[in-house]
């Protein structure tokens, strides 16, 4: 496939890996932010190619994983209501809440529909005027514009039976909180290419300046990631800390302005809880007060539904890169994709799930 096969070329990948190994004078600790990048690294065994030159730690960039437990519980509460049709991306149905998951609620008779696009949820609200259609809007900056457009579309259509259960998180505040932590050992970041395609690079430039840490905006194919790692290693070896863009075929400095405008019109930022990590200042998007009628948290009064996360799970340390999934005593035994104890084992993009799915043969359980 054009624009894909060349980024999976074994010869180029091996040459890049060899250069990274040759240039590294010490073992650099790098973090990829996005779960999609983690998935590629594991799926293609890129860590095997790098040997000891680089330690890759995996960031908190899986939106399914970091959706807080209480929001899952709120979605479950809504899906159990006789008057609600809950619409969601498929991945969310497997995510365990405090007591059950949406797949089980569906089996109990809950009206839950899986869609690939929020537009489908708006269309559903049009065709089911007697149902309250709630879209479970999760994600990072990448899905926010489509969710904003869904609200604007519903407003234009005058729909009163459509709302969003919003669980939106933002990447730069999470990196800031990680860099500010005294336990941080990450020396360079691969920023998420899809997020930067939407929001641009400005916020990452601020982080580079503030913390003197190199950041390279990276793509999602093996050659993209190896190139980004190479760029980071060169910066570190030369003692530089700059923002660079590896993913030039998609990311522009300013990002996608119309998408940013749609998000700014509908959403505002505030503190947000991340599953496995806790609250991070200014790290979430919420519907603005003028769109309160599209906000399921307000129209259904869900504030009383709260939840505690299991204590055994070390997901905070995994999501912040302090520990590897395999450092966890429950990994692969008490915690599997079937019965996840915590966030990173939940979605295929989660770091623990990626290790379990692709790397179990190299680990002694």
């Amino acid at each position, binding site marked *: *496939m054009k624009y*894909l096969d060349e980024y*999976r070329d*074994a010869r180029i*990948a*091996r040459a890049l890996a060899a250069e990274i190994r040759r240039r590294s004078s010490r073992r650099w600790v790098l973090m990829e932010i996005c779960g999609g990048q983690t998935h590629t690294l*594991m*799926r*293609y*065994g*890129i860590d*095997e*190619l790098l040997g000891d030159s680089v330690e890759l730690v995996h960031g908190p960039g899986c939106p399914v994983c970091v959706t807080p437990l209480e929001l899952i519980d709120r979605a479950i509460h809504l899906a159990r209501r006789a008057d609600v049709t809950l619409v969601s991306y*498929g*991945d969310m*149905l*497997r995510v365990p809440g405090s007591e059950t998951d949406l*797949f*089980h609620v*569906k*089996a*109990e008779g809950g009206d839950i529909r*899986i*869609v*690939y*696009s929020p537009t*489908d949820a708006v269309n559903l609200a049009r065709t089911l005027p007697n149902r309250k259609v709630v879209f479970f809007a999760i994600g990072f900056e990448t899905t926010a514009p489509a969710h904003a457009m869904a609200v604007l579309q519903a407003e234009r259509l005058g729909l009163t039976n459509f709302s969003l259960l919003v669980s939106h998180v933002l990447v730069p505040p999470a990196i800031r909180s990680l860099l500010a932590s005294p336990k941080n050992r990450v020396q360079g970041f691969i920023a998420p290419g899809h997020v930067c395609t939407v929001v641009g690079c400005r916020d990452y430039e601020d982080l580079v300046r503030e913390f003197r840490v190199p950041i390279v905006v990276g793509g999602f194919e*093996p050659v993209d990631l190896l190139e980004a790692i190479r760029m980071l290693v060169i910066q570190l070896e030369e003692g530089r800390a700059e923002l660079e863009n590896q993913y030039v075929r998609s990311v522009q400095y300013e990002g996608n302005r119309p998408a940013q405008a749609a998000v700014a019109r509908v959403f505002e930022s505030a503190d947000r809880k991340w599953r496995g990590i806790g609250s991070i200042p200014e790290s979430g998007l919420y519907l603005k007060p003028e769109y309160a009628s599209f906000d399921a948290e307000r129209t259904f009064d869900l504030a009383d539904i709260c939840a505690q996360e299991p204590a055994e799970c070390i997901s905070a340390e995994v999501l912040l890169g302090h520990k590897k999934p395999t450092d966890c005593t429950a990994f692969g035994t008490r915690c599997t*994709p*079937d019965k996840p104890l915590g966030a990173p084992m939940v979605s295929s993009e989660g770091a623990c799930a990626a290790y379990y*799915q*692709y*790397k*179990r*043969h*190299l680990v002694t359980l």
Partner: protein
Amino acid sequence: MPRTTNTNAISSHSKPVSNDEPKDLTAFSCPVPLPAGERILLGHGSGGKLSADLLQQVFLPALGNPVLDRLEDQATVSLNGVRLAVTTDSFVVKPLFFRGGDIGSLAVHGTINDLAMGAAQPLWLSAAFILEEGLPLETLQRIVASMHQAAAGAGVPIITGDTKVVEKGSADGLFINTTGIGRVRDGVYLSSSQARPGDVILVSGFLGDHGIAILAEREGLQFETQVTSDSAPLHALVAQLLDATQEIRCLRDPTRGGLSSTLNEIAAASGVGMELEETAIPVREDVRGACEMLGLDPLYVANEGKLVAIVAAPAAHQALSALQHHPLGQHAAIIGRVTADHPCMVVLRTLLGTTRIVDMLVGDQLPRIC
């Protein structure tokens, strides 16, 4: 298909057991109750781990016997010295019509293939219909005509049937069950438990066509593709393969759960490991493209006209050539080998020369593909 799933707990009979053996009553165990409040999820029908749980927790404890316990795609029984294969399968595919077939042709091919994987020449089929009130008669006629065409094309008559109608809302158009009886080829004993280190793994052609053809028709997922379901009867291909060599250990059709689930089941049943070469696995360009777009791995996508063969190494090229000389096997390929290392695990050597696991499918977000 009576899906063989995780067969860890299954004894490895290398020869079929006749149906007149007395049932061992001391082996009877009480069904393990599922936790209170548990319900059937869509994932229980995925052919993956949840389906295996149902077998182990519900069906085998209650119904187990030496024939059923083997958990092959077909039961093999002896009657007056003649070995017969019996299999049954229900079809609930949505939509009813898709590019390359429909629920009717699929119901014929699926059951023929389950017989063929046991080295059986299909002899007879039954067909039972569960119809939803309100189904247009014209739809039923089209489907029945398609079944006739598929059965006649394969040379296997449908000799008995049944019809039930349920209230509107109790079925999605129609469901079909087919049962098949076939005669097992003399001297051939195939089983998922017979893979041995050193054996070679073959597939008969491009993977993932059926699953992608179905997904392309799904509500909310419409995308343009020329991919056609590979639904086809494989008994003639199998006959050609078995004519060429007797060194076949096991045949399976990788339907629900795709190649990955089938190979994991064989690895578990035989207590061996497997190593695949990513670059050797045949996948069409359009299927790869659709999988990229939908975030799917072609190794997990269903097939309805492909087989996996585990073959003793010295016969591998003979087997490959036999497959490639049949129209349904012209894109056959050797994709890997059986290992003594990492038992019960399937490992893939990636494009980059690194390794990763190819696991059983967990959960199923896009059910009802067959």
